[in-house]
């Protein structure tokens, strides 16, 4: 018998990368101690390059000082995966969920994140697929439309997925995206002929795909959620 599971959805607009990291750390501790239920952050970042735990900075093709000139930040993180770019018009989901509660391992979790983006793309007639071995992420042909980088700590997830709605793809020229050379990056705008609705609609569709794939029966929407104040209590 499946227990009804609720998901708290934080719709956050544009959030600075470090602020989002600090928020995730707070939410992870609360989730570990069962103070909150499964939560997902829905947001986008200002232009930001990030590296994973393996610190593959050889895949940054320009000096770090150049990034400031183009108005981008660089951050080293504990997530899996290689170097990537986040920016406006790229939809990000950071699920803070307990994998142990649903008996999922890393591989199945990442597969479901891939499926989330594949399903969203299909709403616009775009046939996307999961990458093969060593190419985790979501592809349209040989072009990458969605990236994944996850951290799992005591069975609680953080970081997550990034889906290109219509980011400025020139930013990807300064890196070897995800460490995979010779493969293009693409976006929903490039791959579909359909007129796209507002991004808010696309973000909500992404959340719905996620919720359905992870069998959340009950969604609690939190609009314009503030960053947690320092006393650690929301609202």
């Amino acid at each position: 018998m499946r227990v009804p599971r609720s998901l708290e959805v934080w719709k956050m607009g544009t959030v600075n990368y470090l602020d989002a990291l600090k928020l995730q750390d707070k939410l992870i501790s609360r989730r570990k101690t069962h103070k909150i239920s499964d939560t997902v952050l829905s947001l986008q970042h200002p232009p930001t390059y990030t590296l994973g735990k393996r610190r593959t900075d050889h895949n940054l093709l320009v000096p770090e000082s150049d990034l400031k000139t183009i108005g981008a930040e660089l951050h080293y993180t504990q997530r899996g995966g290689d170097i990537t770019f986040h920016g406006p018009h790229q939809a990000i989901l950071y699920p803070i969920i307990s994998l142990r509660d649903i008996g999922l391992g890393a591989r199945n979790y990442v597969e479901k994140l891939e499926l989330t983006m594949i399903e969203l793309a299909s709403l616009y007639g775009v046939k996307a697929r999961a990458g093969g071995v060593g190419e985790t992420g979501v592809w349209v042909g040989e072009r990458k439309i969605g990236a994944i980088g996850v951290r799992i700590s005591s069975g609680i997830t953080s970081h997550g997925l990034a889906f290109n709605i219509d980011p400025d793809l020139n930013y990807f020229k300064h890196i070897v995206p995800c460490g995979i050379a010779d493969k293009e990056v693409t976006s929903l705008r490039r791959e579909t002929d359909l007129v796209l609705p507002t991004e808010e609609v696309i973000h909500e569709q992404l959340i719905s795909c996620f919720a359905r794939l992870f069998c959340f029966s009950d969604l609690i929407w939190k609009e314009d959620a503030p960053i947690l104040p320092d006393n650690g209590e929301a609202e």
Partner: protein
Amino acid sequence: MAGGLLWATRAASYLRISVPFRAFSSVVKDLKYVDSHEWAKVDGNLATIGITDHAQDHLGDVVYVELPEVGANVSQGGSFGAVESVKATSDINSPVSGKVVEVNEELSSSPGLVNGSPYEKGWIIKVEISNPSELNSLMDSEQYSKFCEEEDAKH
């Protein structure tokens, strides 16, 4: 079919490997286990630690293992390193408290040993146990097999 299964479980028993009913993850009889899917092989006051077959199967191909420094302290249930697979870094937790006396350097060049040989060549650290009474709280192979079955039934 039933006869075949009986033979298989008897053979597995004889070989000191217990195979859970669904038979997709192996469990080794004399090891101790924790619910975060690490195992400990205790020899006197030394524990060799790694992740289980169930864990490596659920992780996918391991591409990177973050090892602690020799001499570092670990505590029961605390994280001592991480593995990366399928763009996910997963913390690994110690079943016992103590001091790290050796780490498996081979994993730096061959992280896949964790997948191919989770109980032998894929061992991760060796710890000098500081609190032997902690061993009483660890699961044996039967308890761990049952735990895995219950966890996998959740989805």
